[in-house]
């Protein structure tokens, strides 16, 4: 097995635009990433209904929108996953958790966990990022 594996796959994503209180409530659901003031992205198999209920409890004007098609997941895994990430971005990766910023000149959302780094990038730029991963990490990919 090589030190780095890269897999590209769809991702389930919900955009939540709502009051701070509602965002806080959503953050408790798991898979929630704080994007900015009054904005949360919920990743993974979280039921939209559950999110809508959580938002609705605090903010009836809040917006929950399935944006899965807008995002594509590149998963870096293996012992060199973090090294690979350092070739693509100057962001500091947490040991575990969410961070956002530029990856190969593309605004990305990143979830790191041990030897796994998930790059969630706009689908319209997914091929660009994948090409940069394959090029920058050529010898890590084996």
């Amino acid at each position, binding site marked *: 097995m090589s030190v780095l594996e890269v897999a590209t796959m769809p991702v389930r994503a919900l955009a939540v*635009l709502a009051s701070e209180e509602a965002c806080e409530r959503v953050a408790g659901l798991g898979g929630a990433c704080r994007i900015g003031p009054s904005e949360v992205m919920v990743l993974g198999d979280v039921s939209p209904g559950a999110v809508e209920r959580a938002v609705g409890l605090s903010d009836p004007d809040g917006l929950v929108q399935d944006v899965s098609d807008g995002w594509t997941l590149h998963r870096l895994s293996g012992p060199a996953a973090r090294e690979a990430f350092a070739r693509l971005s*100057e962001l500091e990766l947490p040991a575990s958790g969410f961070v956002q910023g530029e990856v190969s*000149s593309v605004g990305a959302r990143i979830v790191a966990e041990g030897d796994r780094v998930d790059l969630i990038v706009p689908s319209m730029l997914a091929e660009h990022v994948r090409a940069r991963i394959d090029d920058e990490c050529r010898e890590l990919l084996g």
Partner: protein
Amino acid sequence: MTERPASGATGQIRFEGREVSLHEGDTIASALFRAGVRTFSRSLKLHRRRGIYCGTGECPNCLVTVDDVPGSRSCITPALDGMTVRREGGWPSTERDALHVADRLHGLMPVGFLYKTFIHPRSAWPLAERVIRRATGLGPLPGGPADRRVARHLRTDVLVVGAGIAGLSAALEAAAGGRRVVLCEERAIGDGIAPGSTLERIRRLEARARTEPSIEILERHAALGLYEGPVVPLASDRALVQVHPGRLVLATGARERHAVFPGSDLPGVWLGRAAAAMSGLHGVPIGERVVVVATTAEGIEHIRTLARADGSIVAVVSPSMAGELDGDVETIVDARVLEARGRSRVREVVVRSGENSRTIACDALVLSLGTVPRDELARMAIDERVDVVGDAAGDRRCDANDADGIVCLCEDVSTRDLGRAWDEGFRSAEILKRYTTATMGPCQGAMCGLALECFARSMGAAGAAGSHRTTARPPLRPVALETLAASVHEIVDKRTGLHDAHLAAGARLDRSGGWLRPFGYGDRLEEYRAVRERVGLMDVGTLGKFLIAGRDATRLVDRVFATRVDDLRPGRSRYVIALDEGGYVVDDGLLCALGDGAFYLTSTTGGAERMDARLREWTDRFGLHVHLLDRTSELGAVLVAGPLARELLERVTSDRIDGGAIPYPGHGEVIVDSVPCRAVRSGFVGELAFELHHPRSRGPALWESLMRAGASFDIRPHGLDALETLRLEKGHVYLGQDSLPDDTPAKLGLGHAVAMGKPWFVGKSALERLSALPATRRLAGLAFDRAPNDVAELRGAPLMTDGDVVGRVTSAERSPVLDRAIGLGWIREDAASRAPDLRAGPAVARVVPTPFYDPEGSRVRA
């Protein structure tokens, strides 16, 4: 000549047609020196011979071309089996250089000679430049594509630059305090240091550092500079590492003082560390009779090293050091070197002790005159806090010295040159530097920086805050351009979900508005005809697409757009324009009213990011409750256009799409062959048209379904080229192509999209002010006669009448349906009415009303 491999040899390098054997631990310089090479380069201007001098990668003397890479520092580059090495400079060769005559003519070529000599006549310079470039330089760049380099970012608590005693100690101390440490060193740790107490201490510290897990050691990584952050880029021969440290410790050490006296740059004149390494480390004696000038304890250690291997030694030492040496070494106390003499290398040295001068025959002169801190990195710090430790924190002192000699080894600037420049009025270190180019060569002042500073100080030069030091700038070390470029990837192309479908259909893709888009599929005219006569498809997924919701969504769009929007009922849409605060048109789009006071907005392909920023800015400025979601990446869109568009769609949807259900301009939700779409009526191409906005992942299925259903209509996909003709026939304006930055709506013929009756919108007050001014020019439709076959030649052509330029063509196409050349262009208001015919290049242009095609718009409303 081929040498037999000597004992301990580890391979061979190829040097100017011969093989040179390698010994364990050889640098390129040590291997060449062992093989008898004494002249390593020719100096830039005067073609003086240069031999190994600093031995630490600081000076320009030993730069050679290694495997076609010029400017390699042979004294610190490990020699590897199979390398090809050659010297640069000199004609016909470095060894026998006819251009050495330049040295004799030095008096005739004072500083500034080139500037002054070849400036008249100006036409002579290009020729002179070619000759000068051939006679100088470090060698040609390698041809062909550059090797791949890797760039990466590295975050750490502490970065220690320099792994000498101070650096290793600092790294160990930081690690003991629980910090993550990166320790970088330009060479391998301990490399190039002759055996002795210093090296032993380094090895002991190194052993501890290597077993410390929190210290990451990066050898052969040179620090290039210090940037805001702080960020310190490190370059190796394969990679660029951008280190982001929490704390920065500079342990860059000190370099040996460069000496300036007549002949001080002759081959055979060594700085102490270079001589000690050659003799003590590589085992090559530097001479049979060696004069060593030593003023420090380090110098005494060098004498001991040299005494072990070299021939007889004459030590010239300061009084305090006199007792340090044993009887075997001939010692002269408290003397000063006046001159080194010799033709191709040093043969004798003149020293003065008190009133007495003495000439000593020798074949090597070693200078160990103390050190100058390597503090360039520290001087680059502005707000960044850096800790400077060890010799790097030492003093810089000036020696009284008025001897003539080469100050700047890189650029051949002598003490006399500095004096002349001073007399010409260049009276500070910074402008002396610019005029003489001292400190501006490959070593960037590592050798001569102190001498220039001391010269300026001694002359009483004006220096800011008493400083006579020139600015330190990156890169501190020679670095390949491909290394610097390793992290730069500016081109970011967006793709729609239909990218692969376009490729399969043989599309010609190119860049437009940040996207890769089809410009055509092979037959532009047929693509056009499909839309005008039958039905065509176009990928318009590149449009900016926004959901605007929240309690104040209507308030936001009412203020951001000049167009009236508060009366827009759900299911209807409207062309809207956005102005800046100066009243100029900056963006346009199509606004669709959804239920619940929300809107779906499309913007131009290239303007999506601008639109997003504008909407967010005005939301914030007014403190509005708006949820803005950019759906550009998430949604695809396909334009189905042509007189048969509805017929086609009826084959793939069971939803109502007649003019009652989805009127023009309006929109509605439909399921097209199981793909949920928002169908938006569009007027851009001038035919019955629906944009089908759909989930990106369903795009290929939708496209395939439409192509299949349209086969019996001879449906075709079309690209941007056909679109250009289609939209121009309708007289639609491309903002950016047909507009200028200071275009008001009226100038563009977009007055109908402005609702001056609204209480407020961005740019309204500016429009009111501007409306009082007479109109000076406007965008007009143009019909051309006698147009060239390639009508595109008319784009950009000035519009002329009576010899005056009164306008400019912005768009021009041949219209198949009108069978003539048409266009848009700027024209001065006075000329538009006065001149019936205008010249546009070879063609004659007439101002005509737009749209050119279907002016009533009945086809769009079908």
